[in-house]
């Protein structure tokens, strides 16, 4: 399959049709698996939607490729000394929107109020804000319902629109996405960002061009003059498109193609650990599993079974074969940038099938049991492959797994209805603190906590530790609490961690751009060498 009569045909090729192999000097052709869901910047809290918005709009603060909070439309931000529940933002002066409106504090107030509307998907991130007002044209203050030192963390994807533009185009209210509503801002955009929208056909093609009035023209490389963004669903087609020179930047190359891309000569694949861990959850709270042949008892409720499963999973094999080396095998469900992460806990325990079988026998499942594993097939890197591999590994200790892999929209709907016995999940920690993990994934599921804890696991001691964290101000003590909480989680084997994802961005080798740990490329940083 590698015989290429290229030499013979080059002449013909140029005669028939010439595709430029190198990135053209200024246009960046960029592809990813999915498209932005809407251009309304507050309608969906969704990665790819934010990615496109970051090119067109600005936020007050954004996190850069190093994960640091960086000045966007705000040049300075701090909590007022005398009022611990008020944040003040100093705004950048001399900024204009694409359509010429001048940027002022009023636009920030408008945008935050807009993002607090019931239709807004960004609301949960800022609903601690009780009041927002402009001190002057370039100062904005926000009051939260109590001291909120982490507020700035939540603003990195909160985009600023022009009040004048929104009012003129009747787009002051956020699109009601789930009801299928549309407004002017869904297909049009007017931001202060580095690029302005030229044309957009949803799921097909979005074109942007450099906004020469961008405030950061001198601050960033700004070498791209035009962006053509194309979503391409199929992984091999994406790789083929990059290989054949039809695109310049592939945000999510399939792991199996990384080598091939790197070896092709004019493509470079840059990577960085991603802020996302992949793991399996087991429903251990029910009396009886829905999909198991075991009746009257729940095998997952037995710690020995969980330990056996943990011992059966060969994470290194998954990393090497399924992920082609493009992952970091994990022993805990939080990536290394998170406060509370410990290398010791994250160390992968060796696979020990013999011991696992013993444990199964001890637990009374010498003959094994059956269960259905539910997976996504379009959400995480190689998600279905991971599930297949784990299915085989568990089979070796007698856990007979039926695999059900399907699109994430169906998976998450069922997961949130609490219908799944054994499921795959990936989790990122945008706040970079373990409490985020505890709060969502591990605390006992109630209306206020454990929102994504579908394991039925409930541990009073753990809950008590976790609930001290928000109010604990002594950092050292707080870290001790975190460490203790993690030890309980690890000892109980609540989840089966698999790995932390590694992000790969593939691009023409003449492109310089650092990988952003939250998978948010900002083309303003891109430069050609």
């Amino acid at each position: 399959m590698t015989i290429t009569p290229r030499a013979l045909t080059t002449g013909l090729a140029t005669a028939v049709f010439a595709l430029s192999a190198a990135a053209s000097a200024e246009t960046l052709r960029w592809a990813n698996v999915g498209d932005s869901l809407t251009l309304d910047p507050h309608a969906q809290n969704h990665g790819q939607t934010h990615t496109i918005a970051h090119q067109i709009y600005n936020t007050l603060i954004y996190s850069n490729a190093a994960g640091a909070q960086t000045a966007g439309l705000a040049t300075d931000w701090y909590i007022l000394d005398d009022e611990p529940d008020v944040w003040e933002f100093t705004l950048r002066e001399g900024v204009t929107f694409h359509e010429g409106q001048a940027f002022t504090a009023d636009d920030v107030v408008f945008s935050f109020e807009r993002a607090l509307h019931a239709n807004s998907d960004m609301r949960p991130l800022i609903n601690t804000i009780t009041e927002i007002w402009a001190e002057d044209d370039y100062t904005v203050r926000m009051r939260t319902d109590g001291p909120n030192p982490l507020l700035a963390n939540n603003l990195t994807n909160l985009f600023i629109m022009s009040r004048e533009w929104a009012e003129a185009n009747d787009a002051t209210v956020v699109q009601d996405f789930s009801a299928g509503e549309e407004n002017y801002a869904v297909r049009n955009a007017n931001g202060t960002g580095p690029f302005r929208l030229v044309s957009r056909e949803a799921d097909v093609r979005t074109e942007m061009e450099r906004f020469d009035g961008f405030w950061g023209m001198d601050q960033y490389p700004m070498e791209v003059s035009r962006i053509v963004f194309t979503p391409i669903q199929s992984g091999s087609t994406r790789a083929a498109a990059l290989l054949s020179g039809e695109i310049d930047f592939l945000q999510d190359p399939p792991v199996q193609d990384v080598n091939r891309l790197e070896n092709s000569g004019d493509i470079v694949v840059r990577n960085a650990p991603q802020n996302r861990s992949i793991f399996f959850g087991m429903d251990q709270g029910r009396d009886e599993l829905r999909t198991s042949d075991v009746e009257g008892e729940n095998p997952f409720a037995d710690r020995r079974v969980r330990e056996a499963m943990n011992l059966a999973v060969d994470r290194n094999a998954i990393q090497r074969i399924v992920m082609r080396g493009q992952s970091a095998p994990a022993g805990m469900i939080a990536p290394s940038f998170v406060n509370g992460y410990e290398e010791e806990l994250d160390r992968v325990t060796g696979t020990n099938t013999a011991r696992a079988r013993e444990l199964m026998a001890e637990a009374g499942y010498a003959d094994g049991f059956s269960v259905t594993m539910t997976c996504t097939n379009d959400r995480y890197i190689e998600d279905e492959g991971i599930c297949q591999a784990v299915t085989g590994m568990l089979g070796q200790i007698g856990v007979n797994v039926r695999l059900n892999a399907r699109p994430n929209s169906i998976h998450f709907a069922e997961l949130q209805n609490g219908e799944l016995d054994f499921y795959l999940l990936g989790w990122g920690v945008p706040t970079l603190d373990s409490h985020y993990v505890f709060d969502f994934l591990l605390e006992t599921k109630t209306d206020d906590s454990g929102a994504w804890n579908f394991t039925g696991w409930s541990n009073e001691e753990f809950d008590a530790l976790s609930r001290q964290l928000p109010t604990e101000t002594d950092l050292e003590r707080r870290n001790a609490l975190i460490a203790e909480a993690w030890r309980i989680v690890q000892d109980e084997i609540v989840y089966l961690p698999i790995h932390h994802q590694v992000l790969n961005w593939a691009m023409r080798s003449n492109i310089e751009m650092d990988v952003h740990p939250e998978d948010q490329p900002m083309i303003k940083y891109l430069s050609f060498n």
Partner: protein
Amino acid sequence: MTTEQTTGDQPLRPSLWRRIVDSDLFYSFIRSPVVVVSAVLTLIIVLAAAFAPWIAPHTPFNPASLNLMNGFTPPFSVNEFTGDVFIFGTDSQGRDVFSAILYGARVSLLVGFSAVAFAMILGVGLGLLAGYKGGWVDSLIMRVADVQLSFPAILVALMIFGVMRGVIPPQQQDQLAIYVLILAIGLSDWVQYARTVRSSTMSEKNKEYVQAARLFSIPAPAILFKHILPNVTGPILVIATIGLALAIILESTLSFLGVGVPATQPSLGTLIRIGQDYLFSGEWWITIFPGMTLLILALSVNLVGDWLRDALNPKLR
């Protein structure tokens, strides 16, 4: 059609084998080397698939027997971790591609044969009914046939599949997937049988023996069936052979589109779909070997069908 002479003075009817060997069909078969090769290849693949559990060196459908570290072993190479050798290499899960092909062909052929059998029974039955009853029954059946014929099989199959996906609870979808496929493909392909049988029935039903049978209150359909069957065996055999190739391709296409059999019980189409992801990364064997098998199988069946059609239609000779 047949050349055997029934000159009553012959004391013994020649043996079946003798008659087969003497027949025009057999003669034309022996004279077309391409068809002989095709038939032999088809036979080999069918037998290999049927006896897959005894032939295959591995059991690819049992996840517990897989060793992930065998993943992506190239053909005829020694795996660097496990030291195992696989003639057609292994896929992303360490599954022996050769065994997977045998089992995959088993699924493909099972679906193909079952779908053809289903379509044939349905088509022959409805054709007989339409031809014999006539009137509104006939009109109804033939209108449905017309309408369905104007929709391509793949669309009909996709629709049936889409509906089934909604009707069947998710837990059972995987187990039932094969039956849904058979149903979908079979339902999309009954029309030709029905048409052939119907027209034959129409011309037979007014003949004396049917009328006579009625007088003796022998159920006419039974008589019809007995008499019509020999008339339509040839055409039906041709339709079924071509139909088998089409069904196998349709199954693989549906599986390729991700609406066929589950990945844990792959057919040839599923294997190709899975392998496609690795085509550009250099693991060509995962998709090329199943692809070649599918091609050889479909081509062989098509060649046999093509030959059969020509051989049974003396006009074309």
